[in-house]
Structures are given as C-alpha cells and as structure tokens.
C-alpha cells in the first residue's frame, strides 16, 4: 500500500476506481439483503379491466400481487383470492403495466463543473495538459437525490420505471435503471450501470471545441480502448516481450462498452447526429442505441438498414440545424405542430423499433406530446408498447418488466379512463408491489 502510494500520482485514479467498485458492490449487496428482509403484503386487484400487453385484454379480471411480484393475472372467475390478500376494489379502472421512460435526468443534481486548474507558474502553464470534463467512468447513481414530489408527478403520468442518464460532456457517464418505489435510492436500483451515454457536444475552450473535433475525439478514444484492452489481455496471459501498459482510468471505463459490448447510447439532436452515431456504431461494432432522434423520420432508410433501436423523445421543436428552424417563426411553428409530431407514427409504419421517453420534457408536456403523437397517427397500442415491452427488452429487463404476467415485478398503474384519453387519470400505482394512491377525495 505504502509503496503504491509513493509510486506515483497516476495510480490515484486506479485507487479511486477500486474504492468506487468496492463501495458499489457493498451497497448493492446491502440492497439485496434489505429487499429480502422486507416482507411485502399480498394484494388482490379485483374487477378491473386489464391490458396485459402480453396477451388479450381482459374486461373483468383479477391481478394478484405478492412480495412485490405479480403472482397471477386472469379473468375474475378463474382467479381465487388468497385469504391473506388485501383486496383492492378496482371496478371501473383499467390496469396497465407501469410505463418505462428509457431516458430521463430524474433526480440528477450534478455538481457545478470545476473551473480549469490555474497553473502555478509559467513553466506549468506550458506543460499542463488540457483537462477536459470527460467522465466515461461517472456513475450517475452517485449524483442522484430522489425527491418524493418528483416521484409522485411521474406516477401521475403512469411512469414507474426510469433510466436516469448523466447529462454533461461528450462521454457523459453511465446510466442506471430505477424503479420509482419510494425515496430510498438503493432500493430503487434495477440495473446499474445500464449504458454508457455519449453526446455530440464540445468542450468549453478545450479540445474538442468543434463537432468535427468531437467525432475525431470519440473515434480516437474507441481505437485507444481497443488497443489498451488488447495490450492488457496479452500482458496478463503472458508478459513475454511486452511492456506493461500504463493504467488509464478513462480507457478502463470504456472497456465494458467498446470491447465487451455493453450498450452505448448516443444522443442525437438532429438527423446528422443520427448519421454520425450510426457510422460510429458500425465502425466500432458497438451495441448502440440512439436517444432523442426527433428527426428520425428524415433518416428512414439508414435506420431500417442499421436496425439500431431508438429512444425517441417527444420534443417536437425542430432542431436549430434544421431547414424548418431557419425560415422564420411561421415555418418553425408549423413544422413543430404538423411535421415533427408524426415522427413516431412514421417510424412505426416503417417498422423501425423504438421506445418513447420523457427525456427533455416535464411530466405534463410528456403526456401532452404523447397525445399529440397519437393524434399524428401513432396507434395507442404502439404507443403503449413503446413505453412498456419495447424499452424493457432493450434494458435487458424483459423478464422483470413490460407486461402484466405472473413472475414479473408488480409495476402497474390503474387508470380511470383509457390511458391516453384526454380525461384519463392515474388513480393508483404499484411499484415493486408498493401501493401509491392518487385517488382524489370524493371520487
């Protein structure tokens, strides 16, 4: 330990990573323990209409929930209610799987970016390397502060599960999947990390300061990761003739995504971003997904050929690069109202896989824009799938989430009225079998 310390400052990074990993492991195991310790009650939701996604709609059915999981789903006359279950009368209500928003910045409270270090003397100013704000190793979980109010507002639009992604820099960091089941972060984690998030942005005053520089920077880092990983692998299996590679926390953090093909999510703010991302995904054979993509409708052929899944946001504002944003307000507003809302409908017609997300929108505008997308031609069924089973699949959580089936996590919502109707209201939400009641008094 002492010799390591004195060896060099470089190893400090390694130490930080080590501590990070150990602490992550410790609290994950703690989460598992606490989940086992807590005995959850059993519920029987009776007499509700059920949209299970996995099968035909049941007009009058029962859902049994035990220990946070769905125990049974079926027609009212076929399901026997166990004596210990608390019965929740749900006649007049419709049950759906909880919605999944596969890209949010929920609870994210990132610290202010630190000012670049001032050089201490002239010599240092000449030798000091640039320190870009790049953190592929960042785990978003470390920057989250859950708030009860936020959770409630998400529940009220039907969202029970979110991907929380970091939001700064080019290599933004690694996202986590959370079940919105309370206010204890550790108990919410479904998957950590899920994906590496990349944005085609620039560094303030540092390399890369331009989009072209960013693309070059990304490619260089991907090549470096492949080289670095190969070097270590060979060194570890047999060091003959090999110099030991220098530990690099940046590249180390990229290995799971570039070499081991964990998911990489590219934020695409316009059609050209989509093309840039698709080129990188193809060049480095990444397990890529695209998020944002409100101009996906302009890149249909490329998307069809690439088969890369999309996490579509419901922001209908034409991006600043778009022709529709450069011809004055009238054209821009017309495009926002008439062209961009049809994005999801067009993709669905073209059989391009997508999930819908609430990214960049408040919970109320998410719901509003979702309805606009449906009005623009997206079927309700497709919209529902894009918020349940589709994202569940890409998150690798299709065994846990996305449908109302026995064995799955009891994430479900009960609405008065059809989910996407103007007057629909979410009155009850179950997350991990924990019941949240949003029924207003007098109803």
């Amino acid at each position, binding site marked *: 330990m002492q010799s390591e310390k004195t060896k060099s400052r470089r190893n400090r990074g390694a130490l930080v990573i080590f501590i990070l990993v150990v602490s992550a492991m410790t609290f994950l195991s703690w989460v598992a323990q606490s989940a086992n310790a807590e005995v959850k009650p059993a519920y029987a939701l009776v007499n509700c209409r059920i949209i299970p996604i996995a099968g035909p709609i049941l007009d009058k059915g029962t859902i049994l929930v035990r220990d946070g999981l769905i125990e049974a789903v079926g027609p009212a006359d076929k399901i026997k209610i166990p004596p210990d279950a608390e019965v929740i009368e749900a006649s007049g209500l419709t049950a759906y799987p909880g919605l999944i928003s596969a890209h949010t910045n929920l609870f994210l409270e990132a610290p202010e970016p630190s000012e670049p270090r001032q050089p201490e003397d002239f010599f240092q*100013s000449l030798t000091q390397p640039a320190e870009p704000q790049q953190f592929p190793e960042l785990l978003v979980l470390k920057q989250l502060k859950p708030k009860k109010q936020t959770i409630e507002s998400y529940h009220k639009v039907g969202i029970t599960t979110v991907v929380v992604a970091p939001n700064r820099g080019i290599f933004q960091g690694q996202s986590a999947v959370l079940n919105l089941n309370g206010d204890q972060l550790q108990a919410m984690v479904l998957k950590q990390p899920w994906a590496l998030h990349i944005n085609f942005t620039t560094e303030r005053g540092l390399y890369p300061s331009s*989009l072209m520089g960013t*693309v*070059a920077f990304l490619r*260089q880092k991907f090549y470096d990761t492949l080289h670095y990983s190969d070097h270590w692998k060979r060194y570890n299996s047999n060091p003959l003739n090999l110099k030991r590679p220098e530990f690099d926390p940046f590249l180390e953090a990229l290995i799971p995504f570039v070499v081991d093909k964990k998911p990489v999510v590219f934020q695409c703010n316009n059609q050209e971003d989509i093309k840039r991302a698709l080129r990188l995904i193809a060049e480095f054979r990444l397990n890529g997904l695209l998020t944002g993509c409100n101009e996906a409708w302009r890149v249909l052929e490329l998307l069809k050929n690439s088969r890369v899944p999309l996490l579509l946001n419901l922001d209908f504002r034409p991006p600043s690069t778009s022709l529709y944003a450069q011809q004055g307000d009238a054209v821009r507003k017309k495009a926002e109202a008439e062209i961009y809302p049809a994005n999801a409908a067009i993709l669905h017609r073209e059989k391009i896989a997508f999930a819908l997300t609430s990214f960049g929108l408040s919970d109320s505008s998410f719901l509003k824009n979702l309805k606009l997308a449906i009005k623009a031609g997206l079927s309700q069924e497709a919209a529902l799938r894009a918020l349940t089973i589709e994202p569940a699949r890409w998150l690798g959580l299709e065994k846990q989430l996305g449908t109302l089936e026995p064995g799955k996590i009891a994430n479900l919502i009960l609405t008065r009225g059809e989910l996407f109707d103007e007057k629909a209201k979410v009155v009850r939400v179950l997350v991990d079998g924990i019941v949240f009641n949003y029924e207003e008094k007098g109803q």
Partner: protein
Amino acid sequence: MRTSLKKIVVLSTILTILGFSASSLLAGGNLLIKNATVMTVTSGVIPKGDVLIVNGMIKQIGQNLTAPPGTRVIEANGRYLIPGIIDTHTHIALSGTNEGTEAITPEVRMADVINADDPSIFTALTGGVTMVHTMHGSANPIGGVNVVLKLKWGKPSEELIVKEAFPTLKFALGENVKQSNRTLLPGRPQRYPATRMGANAIIRRELLKARDYMAEWDRYEKLRKSKNPPANLIPPRKDLRLETLAELLRGRLIARCHAYVATEMVEFLNLAREFGFKIGAFEHAWEAYKITDELLEAGVGVSVFIDSWAYKIEAAEGIAYNAAYCAQRGILVSINSDSSERIRRLFNEAGKAVKYGVTPDEALKMITINAAKQLGVDQIVGSIEVGKQADLALFSEHPMSAYTRCDLTIIEGEVYFDREKLLQEREAAAIKKGGN
C-alpha cells in the same frame, strides 16, 4: 465575414417557398435544353445549340436534337448555358469550420459534419454553383480533411459527397494561424505558433512525427509478415492525427494550403519537396505573381480572390492582376468565394477578372474546368461534353457580363433552381397570405 445579415435577408425572401418547390422541380435526370448559346468551355461556343441529358448524363450536344417522349424540354431562347460553377474554397454546408483549440488537427474530417439543411446551399444554387470544395478553416497550420459536395438541395447529406474528387487536407499559414492563438480560458498558455516561422516549424515537426509513425507501423507489419513473428507482437497505437499525415506522405491525400505571401508559399513548396507530398493548390495566394517560376516548377495551381487586394495586412502586396498574370504564365488558376454570400455571384468575380486582363473564355474556365482540375473531377464535370455529368447553369446574358443572372441550375439533369418558377411560387404564396 459579415454574412449573417445577408443570409437572413436571403432566407426570408427566397426560402419560404422552398417547401413546396423542391419536389416539383425534379426532372428525373432527363432534359432537353433547346436553342441555348452553349459555352462548352473545352470546345468553343455553339450558338443555338441543344443539349440532351439522359439519366443525368450529357448524351448529345448539337442542333435540332429531339428528345425521347416524356422528356422535359427547356427552351433557352439563346440564353447562355455553361457548365455548373465550381467553388474550390468554401465553408458552407458544415456544422463548424475550425477545430481551433489545437494547432494541428488533421484527425478531423469535414465529411463528419455536413449539414445538408444549410440554406447557403440554396444561395449558391441561385448563382449557378453546382459543386463546392468545402474546407476546414484557416485557424490551424494543419486543419482537417476537406470534402467536395454537389449542391443537391433537399437531398440527404450522404448523397452530396463527390467520391471521385481528390481527398484533400487543409493547411494554413500566415496571419490567421498567428492570430488564432488567443487563449480561450484564463490561465491557459497561448497556442503555439505565434509567428510564421513557428507555423512552418510545427508543420515540419508533425510531418517528422508522421514519418516515425509510418516507420513504426512498417516495422510492425514486417515482423508480422515474417516467417517467425516474435511472441506477443502487438500493433502500434492507431493515432488518427498521424494516420492522416501518413496518408499525405503516402500520396493519398493532397495538400491545400491557405497562404498569402510569397515567402511562406516558397517555404511550403520546400516542405512538400522535402517530404514528398503533393500540393493541390495554394488558397488565396495573393503574392503568387511573385513566384510563378517556383509554382510552375512544382506544378502547383492557385485558387484566388479577384479584387479584394490589400484588405488585410498580409494582402498588402496583393494585386488585381494576380489571376491574369498567373494564368498567362501557365499556372492553373481558379477563383473561389470563401464566403456563403459571395458564392452566389462567383460569376461576377470571374467577370471582374476580365477587367484585369483575363479573356472572358479564360475567366469562365477559372470557375469551371480549372476548378474541376484542381479538385480532380475534370473527367466528370467542368465542361459541357458528351459523357460528362449534366451539371449546368443557364444565364440570361453572357456569364461574364455585369448584367447577367442565373435563371436555372441543373445537377445531373435535375433542376435544383428555377428562377421563374420560384418567383411565380413566391407571388402565389404572397397572394395567398394576403387573401387570408
């Protein structure tokens, strides 16, 4: 460049009707243009000439041609048909111009940041421009890899790229490089270089690095291919910066160097000789007239402005006769816009060259076939010849006349700009708006 205001004016007037004009203009790549004054550029002028275009290619040039049924016929009424204008130096249709934080950035590629929605594309079409060499800026001694585009307005970015063109790498010398070294963040050192000698030195240093890099890879490849490769042979690190420079040294990339004064151009010619790389052209090259012997010996052309001599300190010894004199000495000269506004009147720039001693025919070459030669596309465009791609522009008067204007711009047989139609549509749109 104070083009933003102009840009807004052009946008608000012309672009509003684009939404419903673009698709209606397409002709399926088949056209017959009748009774034009056909300025072939490479084989004289045909008065009352017809040009038949089939599948985007020039099929026939002559008189009294007939078209297959269904072909759109354009009656030129004696107007002037010229090859589409080619701008050898612009920065349009890009998201970003410089990666200015470092002096040496050959790893960046303009092809990564094409924006096919840039209205400058349409602006350029209104002036008969059909192809551009859109480049990295001049902030860096070694900038990025440029790209040649056809201005197919409304088509996706990947369909704009001209794959046949030379791959080129931007270099820059002089004031822009020197003055791009201001620090962007407090406490940061100023960017090196701050002088002309520094610019030369840093380029040389990088090229030496690239040589070492190539040698390292050669060593590796030799070992890898040997009968008994050593155990645990790993390839060197792939360095995109040096990779690009290695391509230059291997002759697969061609240098395009922004330079104003004679001394820096001669120094760069010496560097090219020392390292054995090719120079496509000097950009702007205000003092080229001083070193015509050197340019001729090296076989290097120039891409110039016409009459903005002395607009900045390093252009102080620029002269309006630069293009004329260089052309007379046998140097390949093209005229560029370097501007999203001047690009729509590049023919006027060529016209001005006539005042300073260039013949009208030669001036027209400077924005067509000469430009095509400098970009390595003279086999496919740059003149009106059978077998070439039908990139054409129809002008109301002689294209070098001060009174001329572009009426039609055609790329591969598709009409991308039709002045008359556009004006009609604009009027209709105005009436409709007024009627409401």
